[in-house]
Structure formats: structure tokens, C-alpha cells
């Protein structure tokens, strides 16, 4: 990939059916794109699930993935919310080494980060933190010197601020997006595809 990569966040509404996750993941896998985090859960509507997918990819790649997710039969809508104003949260449980002496300092850190201690054992404690990615990063950095024994993170969930129409078919808007993209002439497509064609020479019969 010659494109500049950036963290892209997609919100996808899907039918809650077997295999849907596989189909979506497959679109990333076949292009060699890595998924940083992926969350799925029920929504306010029955049989409809919502996914938040975070992937570090170029602008053109993001456009391509979005358009291909949209084509999946079980997908109701897909939106790349990277450039929208959103609230983003994830949760982490972090088990740290806690000796008699360090326990006080850990409590202090927990208070400053508005995290919580959810388990206390003789030589360790578990901290729960909810927040935007950077806040969790910051806490992890501060805890590292104490000795992190184990950590688990949920991956991001993202919601747009305010009220907007739900783009159920996503088509008219998507079509508009395509025109807009064309006008802006973002680096969609050519560079990546080009590299492929050139590397292929003399190519395949």
C-alpha cells in the first residue's frame, strides 16, 4: 500500500444471522487489511446488530471497503464515521501487580483517571476503565511500570452526536459521496491498484 494510512471507523448495521461477521471480515482479509478492533451487539431494533469496525487503512482503501460492505446482502447500512463528530468509547480491564507500598499510588492513579478498582487480591488488583482510546492508552502507560499482568479491551463503540436520519439504504447518500469524492479528487484507487499492476509485470496469463 502506497497510500497514507489512517484509522478509519465504520458503523455497520447488519441482519443478525449466522455468517455475517465472516462475510464482513472476509472483505478486509482478502485485501490484506488489518482490523484493529471490531465490536458487535444488538441494537434498539430486533434482529438487527450493529458493528463498529476500526481499521488502519488509506482513504481509497476505506472507500473501497465501505462500498463492498454495502454490497453484502445482509448489510442494511454502512457509514465511515471517521470524519464525523462522534462519541467513542471502549472499556479495558487491567490487572496490575499491587504490593503493600504501590497500592496507594495505584489508587491515586485510578482516582485521577476516573477508573475503578473492581477486584482486590493479595498481590494484584483489577482496574476497570471506560473512555476514549487515548484516555485508556494514557492509563496503560502510567500503569506499565507497576507491572501489568493481564489486560483485556472491548474495542471501540462509536456513535454520532446529535440527531440524524438513519441511512437505511445508504444509497442516495452514498451516490452523493461518490460525486463529492470525485470532485475532491482524493487519492482513491489509482496509487494502490497501480502498484499492483506494475509489480505484476509481466503479469499473469
Amino acid at each position, binding site marked *: 500500500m502506497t497510500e497514507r494510512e489512517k484509522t478509519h471507523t465504520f458503523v455497520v448495521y447488519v*441482519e443478525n444471522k*449466522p*455468517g455475517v461477521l*465472516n*462475510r464482513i471480515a*472476509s472483505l478486509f482479509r*482478502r485485501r490484506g487489511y488489518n482490523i484493529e478492533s471490531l465490536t458487535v451487539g444488538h441494537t434498539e431494533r430486533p434482529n438487527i446488530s450493529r458493528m463498529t469496525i476500526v481499521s488502519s487503512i488509506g482513504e*481509497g482503501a476505506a*472507500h*473501497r471497503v465501505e*462500498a*463492498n460492505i*454495502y*454490497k*453484502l*446482502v445482509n448489510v*442494511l447500512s454502512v457509514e465511515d464515521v471517521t470524519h464525523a463528530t462522534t462519541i467513542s468509547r471502549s472499556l479495558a480491564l487491567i490487572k496490575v501487580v499491587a504490593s503493600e507500598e504501590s497500592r496507594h499510588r495505584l489508587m491515586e492513579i485510578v482516582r485521577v483517571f476516573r477508573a475503578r478498582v473492581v477486584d482486590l487480591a493479595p498481590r494484584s488488583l483489577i482496574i476497570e476503565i471506560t473512555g476514549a482510546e487515548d484516555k485508556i492508552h494514557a492509563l496503560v502507560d502510567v500503569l506499565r511500570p507497576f507491572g501489568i499482568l493481564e489486560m483485556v479491551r472491548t474495542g471501540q463503540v462509536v456513535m454520532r452526536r446529535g440527531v440524524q436520519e438513519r441511512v437505511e*439504504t445508504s*444509497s*442516495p447518500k*452514498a*451516490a452523493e459521496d*461518490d*460525486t463529492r*469524492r*470525485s470532485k475532491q*479528487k482524493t487519492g*482513491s*484507487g*489509482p496509487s494502490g*491498484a*497501480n502498484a*499492483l*499492476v*506494475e509489480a*505484476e*509485470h*509481466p*503479469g*499473469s*496469463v
Partner: protein
Amino acid sequence: MNERSSDSATPRKLSGAEIIWECLERLGVEHVFGYPGGAILPTYDALTKSRVHHVLVRHEQGATHMADGYARASGRVGVALATSGPGATNMVTGIATAMMDSSPIVCITGQVGSAVLGSDAFQETDITGITIPITKHNYLVTRADEIAVSLREAFHIAASDRPGPVLVDITKDAQLGSCEFDWELAAPRVHRQVPDFFPDPAQLNQAAALINESQRPVILAGHGIILSGAGEEVRRLAETADIPVALTLLGLGAFPASHSLNLGMMGMHGEAWVNQAIQESDLLIALGMRFDDRVTGKLNTYAQKAKKIHVEIDRAEINKNVHVDAPLIGDLRAILQRLLPLVKPNRHSEWWSQVHVSKQDSAVRDIQNLPDNGHLYAAHVINDLWRETKGDAVIVTDVGQHQMWEAQYYHHEKPRSLITSGGLGTMGFSLPAAIGAKFARPDAEVWVVAGDGGFQMTMAELATIVQEKLNVKIAIINNGYLGMVRQWQEFFYEGRYAGTPLLSPDYVKLAEAYGIPGLMVSERSQVVPALHTSRFHAGAALIDFRVEQEDSVYPMVPAGADLHAMIRRPTPLVERPTDD
């Protein structure tokens, strides 16, 4: 759709297997191409009570290509049937072929019982998992009462929007189980497939303005024209604004070859003047084509001076390879109908004379214009076939040099008269696809044009032709090589012919072993008489054309090279190719 309404009101109790046939009948299916086995046996048993005609193939890959050929020849959904495990995996190549070329087929596979799914039971493969990337959609059906809705959805998805293959994997217990059959209740519940939107007036105006202002426009005509049935609209657009029309391989037939505005095929083995015109154009109007690497050559030198209008049903194709100035997303025919009133009558005489200059240069290199040196060239065979059939036959090609010569020397006037594997380039496609095409268009003269390599991949289907008493004509372009690969070795690997010299059986004897009359032709003068004999034979016939072994397809744009950097046919013929 040929729905029987009489009995649809009262639900009846049917087995899953019976439901399969009942649905296929109601969906208008007349022929199913299949091969039986354990996991699909209940369905075969129920076949005895169905009106659907089953064609026994010799390999499940053949079944998928037949369904594909049927679909491409008719525009209707083709159906293939196979058992689980090896039956299903044998379908993979055919499914991928249909996917790449947007061909609407439905593949039905038997699956082991739902109770043992995932246990590595005998002949179990995860065929839905395997085919996720090569189908438009697929279903794993584990209950009889899910069969009808799955099949109805599968047909809907395969044929709508940008068409493609759909696989329905049905467990044995679902075939054996029974339920109330209610056609109405099984209506497709697909959320959205057919794009229900069209470009707004502003977008149409923008595109029309580009067309009206252009001095050097070129229409790039693709497969989408045929799929959308937009041939007439494309002709009106070209004629109104006097625009040259270049075609993709799969677009051949979408615009009449004999039309004065027709330029010919573009791309790797396109005509030199066509590629030249694209490179010099100031506006490309891409209609139902996807800027595949075989038509663009090197992307960052592709049509640099041209603005691009892209009319396309699949949003994922917009800006994929080539930056587009005016995308119009939706059904091609519907969009052109809205666009046409905005396009002003125009003449581009200067542009045309520029195009004609480069055309003259190419004409002298045309093999048809070279002196007869007594050798038989594949191009002669194809050209004579075109003349003899008056361009009226349905030609089904395999993949390789002969495929490109077909595209260059058989001039297609009508949509669906060329059936060829473009996107996947699947050798072995032609014979089975021709069988499917013949079922779709029994009155058409159907010719297979195959290489000696590809023909040997699926020639077992000769037996299917005989068993079904089909009148399919076969021309083998026998050059003793995997010719296209040999050509690449000649041009790019200093003539080291590794793995490309190819032995063939005696095709005349082979044909005769199947009861098919065969002829062998090695001289130019024998071509027309042999074609004549075969054409007027009442059934299938085969001709083994022993052509020049080391001829190459010209012009050629090497993969990844600039579209205008073509290797041209040396003249006279004996010269080595040089890059000009």
C-alpha cells in the same frame, strides 16, 4: 417468471426435495445441469416427479459453466446441481468464473445432515465458507421450511442489480423433512438489491455538459450494456453526438461491429487505433465497464487528457482503478434514457480523421492483408467462420490466443453472440458453456472455439453433447502449444518454452469415439469446405484446425505497460516482434 397460481392459495405438505423442484418450476427453470451423489440423493429422487429437464454432466465444473453459458446466452438464471464435498468443490472454478463476469447462476448443493455439520462427516466440506468471496451471496439451509424462501431469494439476488452467482447449500435432513409449502409466504425478504435511486438532474447535466463540450470523445462499451439491455440507447448516444465506440472483450456485440461508429476492441489485444484513440481522447464515456487492468494498461499513463464519465450499477467500481469526474450510478439503460435528451447533436470530423490516420497504419499489418504463404493461421480460420456463418452464430470461446483472435476476427453484431470467460480467464470454459448456450437458444448456431489446451480440460463433456443429442459445432484451434503462455515466454522470457509444448489426442478419432463426425484441416483452402460440411451436418461436429504453431496475437500491450506502447505484428510475417 412462469408462476402457476392455481394451487398457490392452498398450502400443501411437501418434502424439502419436492419443494426444490416445485420452486424451480415456478421460477421458470426448464433445465438443470447436475451430477448426483449421496447428500443430494433425496432431491434426485424427487426429480422423477418434476417437469424440469436434468442434464447429466461429466464433471461438476461443467455444470457450473453450462449454467453460466445458459445465463449469458439468454439473460435468464442458469441452475447447477451437485452433491456435497467433492461435488461442491468441483463447482468452485465455475462459480468464480460467473462472479468475475457478473453472470446470474444459482448453484444448489447437497450437504451432510445438520446434526453432523462441522464433524468432518463423510463428504462434508464447508462450501458456504469456501464460496463467500466468490458468490454474490450464499445460503446454508438446514430446514425444509427455509428452502423455498432461500431459493426465491437466491434467484432474485442472482439476477438483480449487478448479477452474479448464488449458492444454496441444503442439508440432507432439510431435503428429507417436510413442511407446508406456501409460495406466497416464501416471497424474497432481501432488504435492498435493485438500486432504487438515479443520479439527480445536476449530475446528469454535468455529464451531458462534458459530452456536449468534448472535442475527442470515446465511448467505452462494456458488458453492462448487454446486462442492462441498453444497446439501443448506446447507439442513440453515439449517433447523436457522433462518438466513436470502443468495446471491451465482454462488450463485443453490445454495439454492432458493422456500425460506422464502431472502433473495435480496446485493451491488451485491442486494435492499435482504438487504444491510440483512448490515449488521445478528451472524454471517456465508460458504460457498464470496470477499467480492468487488461483494458487500461499502466494506470498513471492511462488516458491522461481525458475526463471520465462512468455509468455503472455497482458503486464499488466507481473510482476503483481510474479517477472519475462524473459518476452516474444505477441501471445503465434507465440512466441513458434520462441523459439522452440532454445530449446535443454534434459532429467530430476532425477527431474522426485523426482516428482514421492511425487506423490506416494498422490495416497494412492485418493478417488478412498479408500475402498467402500457404500457412494456416488461426485468424484465417476465425475470419472464414465469421464469413461462413454471416456473423450470425453464437460463439463460445475458451481462453488463450484463439480467444483473442476470435475477438479480433469474428465481428459480432448482436448482444449475447459472444460468450467468453473474461475476468477469470477460465480454460475449459468453452465446451460446457456452449452446451448451456445451446439449451438457452436451441435455434441458434452454436460454435465452440477452443484451444488444444483448454479443450482438453473439459472435453469429457463431449459425452453430454451426445447424450443430450445437441447440435453444437466445435472448432479446435490446434497449435500444439499453450499458445498464449508460449507467446509470453517468447516475448518476455527469451523464448524458453517451459511447460507449454502440448500433445493432443487424434481429435478426429476422439470425436468418432463419441459418435461425432470429425475433420482435420491443415491448409487454408480446406477451411471453408470443412466449415461447410460441419455446418450442414444435422448434429454435433468437430474440426481440428492445425494452425501455425508459433504465431502470436498482435497488437499486444505488455501487462503494466502504457496502453499506447503496443507490440505490433512485424511485417513481413517472418520478422521477430519489436517494440515500436
